[in-house]
Each structure stands twice: as C-alpha cells, then as structure tokens.
C-alpha cells in the first residue's frame, strides 16, 4: 500500500525522530511511504489563534499537496483532527474549489494508530520496548478524533512493555497551542497536575500520539529533573528487539 506521510511542521522541525520512526514502522508493515516535499503545516496554530485567513491559505495548500494520495498518515492526533474536523468548517465560507478539495482529502487523513488498526488491520506491530510506560490520551486524539483505546491496544501488544494507568488521564495538559503562552499561569498549573500524575504512576516513559503536548509536559518533566522521558507512540512502536 502506498501512503503519504504528513509529518507535521512540529515533528519536521523539532521531532524528526518521530517522522523517521513512522517511516520505519510503516515500511516494516509493508507500506510504501512517500513524503510529499511540498507539505508544510495544516494551519492549526493560525486558525485556533484567530488568524483564519493565514490558516485557510495553509489548509488550501495541504489539500493540494495531498489530494492525489489514497491514504495520508499523520503521527499527530491534533493535526489529523484539524484536517478532518476543522477543514470542513473552514471551507464552508470559502470558494475556489476548497470545499470540494476538503471533501476529497479529509476522509483520507488518518492519525497513526487509526491507520494501523482501521486501515491495515494490525494490532500487534511486532515491537519490543521493555520499559514502564504510561499513556496520555491528548485532547484532540481523545475528544476530537475519538481514538478510544487504539493506542493502548497497540502499546499493550509491545513485548516487554509495562503499561501503567495514568491518573486523571483525560484531563488536558494545558498546552493548547498558543494558550500556553497567552495564559501561561493557568497552562503551567494544568501541566504541573499532569506531571504530578505522571510521577505518581511510576512510569519511566510518558507516551502520547502528539508531540506538541509531549513537548509541553516534557518541558516541565525536564525542568523539574524528574528523569521521566517523553516518547511519541510511533517511536515505541518502531522499536524491535533488533533495535
């Protein structure tokens, strides 16, 4: 199967390891992976901060770049939710064939765990990662895309991985994109609660399907010198006994 990787601008720039892990995982599962080089950003930051016009320009670009692919995989619940949920609304008031492009592209965009389970039909990806891991179901993955237990199913089948329940898992980490700098006090307090819960559950690794949220919680885990690492779901699933 030939899939296009939408790596996302955050992963491209700050977390290339997640992109590499996604490529290696998909190839291991028999997919032919393409990276359309013209891709940049889904426009979420602009739209959600109130810069709709800039956001729409980026969204138009996204639909043009990915229009010709059968399936698009994004290692980010938030960016996938942006395309699938917010693009149709953005397109409602726009002309120039944007609505048609969205109707065509949006349903083909999958978050990684959705693609693995719903499209490829795989729940055991043959990974090995002998560590204590807890999973934070980020808001847009949980309440936007409704990933449900897909990531947990995948993690549950990783050799050696001990999955620890995260108290208050469904509560937001306080990132919220520009919310984290526009309301930094509330954001940091939400983050601190998340960090406390991560420490309480005794995990060595905090995993999520979104690096932006992980970057936020990880930033405080690091500042507080907790020793807990952050890892994107793709990076854990890409690990095998050989690596």
């Amino acid at each position, binding site marked *: 199967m030939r899939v296009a990787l939408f*790596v996302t601008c955050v992963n*491209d*720039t*700050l*977390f*290339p390891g997640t*992109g*590499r892990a996604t490529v290696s995982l998909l190839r291991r599962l028999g997919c032919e992976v393409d*990276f359309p*080089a*013209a*891709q*940049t*950003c889904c*426009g979420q*930051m*602009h739209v*959600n*901060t*109130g*810069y*709709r016009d*800039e956001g729409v*320009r*980026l969204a138009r670009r996204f639909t043009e770049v990915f229009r010709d692919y059968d399936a698009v995989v994004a290692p980010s619940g938030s960016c996938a939710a942006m395309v699938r949920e*917010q693009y149709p*609304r953005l397109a409602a008031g726009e002309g120039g064939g944007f609505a048609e492009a969205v109707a065509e592209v949006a349903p083909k965009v999958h978050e990684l765990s959705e693609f693995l389970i719903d499209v490829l039909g795989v729940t055991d990806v043959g990974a090995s990662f002998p560590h204590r891991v807890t999973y934070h179901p980020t*808001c*847009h993955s949980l*309440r*936007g895309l409704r990933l449900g237990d897909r990531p947990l199913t995948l993690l549950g089948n990783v050799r050696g991985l001990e999955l620890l329940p995260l108290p208050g898992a*469904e*509560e*937001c980490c*306080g*990132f*919220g*994109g520009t*919310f*984290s*700098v*526009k*309301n*930094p*006090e*509330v*954001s*940091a*307090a*939400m*983050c*601190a*609660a998340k960090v406390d819960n991560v420490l309480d559950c005794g995990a060595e690794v905090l995993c999520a399907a979104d690096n932006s949220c992980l*970057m*936020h919680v*990880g*930033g*405080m885990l*690091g*500042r507080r010198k907790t020793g807990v690492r952050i890892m994107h779901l793709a990076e854990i699933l890409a690990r095998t006994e050989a690596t």
Partner: protein
Amino acid sequence: MSGAGRGRGSVTFIGMPRSFRENAAEAMQDAQLGRNLRKATHTIRGKRARVVEELPDWAELREAGRAVKDHTLRHLDRYLLQLEEAVTRAGGHVHWAADADEANRIVTELVRATGESDVVKVKSMVTQEIGLNEHLAAHGITAYETDLAELIVQLGDDWPSHILVPAIHRNRTEIREIFRDRMAAWGRPAPEGLSDEPAALAEAARLHLRERFLSSKVAISGANFMIAETGTMVVVESEGNGRMCLTLPETLISVVGIEKVLPTWRDLEVFLQLLPRSSTGERMNPYTSMWTGATEGQRFHLVLLDNGRTGVLADEVGRQALRCIRCSACLNVCPVYERAGGHAYGSVYPGPIGAILTPQLRGMGSELDNSLPYASSLCGACLEVCPVAIDIPEVLVELRARARHPRSERMAMRAAGWLLADQARLSRAQRLAVRLRRLIPRRLPGPASAWTDTRDLPEIPEESFRDWWERS
C-alpha cells in the same frame, strides 16, 4: 433598609479593565480558593458522570434537547408572541425589554407601584446580568437574595463565581464567618456560637430567610423555561426557597431572557431530564415550580429581556450559545475554570459558556471581553458534557478570529504564515535553527519567557525530518 446599596454585585463586573490572564493569575495566588474549587468541581463532575452514564438514551436526549432549542430559536418571534398571548390570557402582564436599562426601569416601576421597599429574590442569572439589585438599591428598594449560595454572596459583599453554585469559592469556615459577621445587618442575626457544620449553617440561613419570606409582599424571579402553548413559567431549584418566593408574596415579577421559551409541555420533558443530571448530578430535580398567569388576589408580571440576544441569534456560528440551559456542566469539567475561578471571567456567566456568551452579549470592546475567547486550551471537555451539544470550542475559535490581536503577535503570525507558505522557506529556517541550536538559552526573554519560566524548550535536532528524508 439596612442592606440597601451594600452589595457590589455583578454590575461592577462590567468594564473590568484587566484581561482574563491577569485575573486568573491573581486568583491562582489564593491556595484556599484553589482547593475549594478543585474539591467542588471534581465532586459535581463525578456525580454528573455517574447519573449520565446510567441512562442508555442520553445521546438521544441530548440530540432532542439540541433540536428543540434550535427549532425554537429559528421561530423565536412566533413562540414569543404565542407566549405573550397565553400569559395574558391567564391573567399575567407581559412587558418587553430591549436591554438591561429598560428591564431595570420596568421592574423598578412595578415594585414602586406596590408601595413596597423590600423584595425577595429567587436565584436568577438574568437579573444579575442586568444588575437589577444595584438598580433597585439606587431607587431605595432592597433586594434580598434567598438562594442559600446567593445569600452567602450577598452577605459577603461578594460576586457569584459559578452559575449553579455561586459561592463555590467559599468553604464552610468562611461561610460561618460571613453569617456571624454580616447576617444582622440584613435581618435576623446568626445564632450565638454558630458552628461550621453544614446543618448548623443551613439552619441559620433558614431562620434568617423565613422571616423575610413571611414579611415580603413582592418577589422577583427568573425562569428556567417558559411554555409558549400554555404561558406556563418553570423554575427549577434545589432548596424550596424559590418556591417560598413564588407562592407567598402578592406580586411576582419574573425577568426572563427571550431564549428560555419552549413551544410545548412535551418539550419540557426532555429538559427536566437533561438539566438535573447535568447540573447537580441528580436524577430528578427537588423543587420544580410551575405557574400559569396569576391567581385571585395575586399579580404576575413577566419581563421578556433581549439585552443582546437577538444579535447573538443573527450569528450563524455563535447562536448555538443561546441553547444554553445554564446547567454549568461545562464549568465543572473545565480545567481552566478550575484554576482561574469564576471571578476571572468578569461576568455572571463564567467558565466555558461565559467565554462564548459574554463576548457575544456585551461585545469585545474591553480588554477583558476581548481576552475571554482565549480563556481555553480548546480541550473539548465542555462540548462533551454539554446537554444541548453547544460546540464551545468552535465558537471560541470563531470569536478569536474577530478579536483584536496584539501587534507583536500579529507580526509573528504573519511571519510564520509566510514561512510556512513555501517549503523552501521552511527548510531554510529549519537549517538556520539547526546551526544556532547551541546558542538558544534555556530561559528566553520577553513574551517567550511565558513558556520558559516553568518549562524547558525542546532541543533543536541535528537535522530536520525533511533533510533526513532527502539525504536517505
């Protein structure tokens, strides 16, 4: 009377100059407030979740609630006229108020006509929205709040901070102090040696209020619902104090927002299931009072209030906020409300619903109102619990697009937009960042310090993903 002009009340909210961020940051300095809020919101949140989960048809009920409200709003003119006719036929008097000033004027004249200078009040959001108590006080009329929590707020010279539990920011020790120090100025004093046991506090309030109920000739209420086909008013409350006000006085004046109308009795059935489970986490509401017009010897006035609502109705995205039944489920699940507290929102409508309702009702002219659409991480917990499926994140994003943006942010966003509009530009910027990666300090100056004060920055990797892809 002794209490006149004492309360700060909601009207003081208006024009609050500071932004939500500043209000929230200040509230977070109060550790006791934080504990009170956390305990209260998490308790109600849990109760709600349990009684919602037990209903197999919750999703259908919610959809029915949404559909009834949308239908009614679409034909609001028709149902309001039908309501007016039915109320009038049943012996009530209907008044139309375009804004807060007009409503306050109408109510004040109605009270004056009775010759009374004291009125008792049923817990009501809308009379706080228009600053009725303050207006009455300025005209020599004292309004006595009779809802337990509103009483605590009024005696404490305080503001409500939650829709359902206005004194959520107070714990029982604080309430004891307020009762002990302030009750005497408003009527019967608190008993000697009052403890902070909930039963003792409730008894003190009961004795204090009972005297007031029996002596008052005029009551003012809001309403949760109005039934157009019969002209029936519905008040949903937990204490029975509202029913005292609705039945004992000779004159009852109800001020109700025009969006509260429902077409038929059958529609009410849906909301009497949705509301108690969403708000108090109860299966059934304890005191549901309904009345139609006026009985012999009593007078009933209905003041129908617009105060910005038709403007909201004209907005295709924002109008869904008018579906709100004031259950406050969105407040109880909101991680931002939990930290910031209700006062930070500077309005009688705090929390997520306030963040979309307040800027629509009173515009975004002030710094505070302009900042309210940003008082959310867009986590979506509010939408999930809303019994009428108001997509609060969607409206927040829409309002953000209409907000005034700071100049520096505008420039940064424009620059980011330019950079991301072309992969070659993005690539060059990434390579520059990689080259400078060792020079980026752990703590950044200026606005970026908002992040680095409490969180490390992620490390810039040795190469971007796209460079790796091209190379491999």
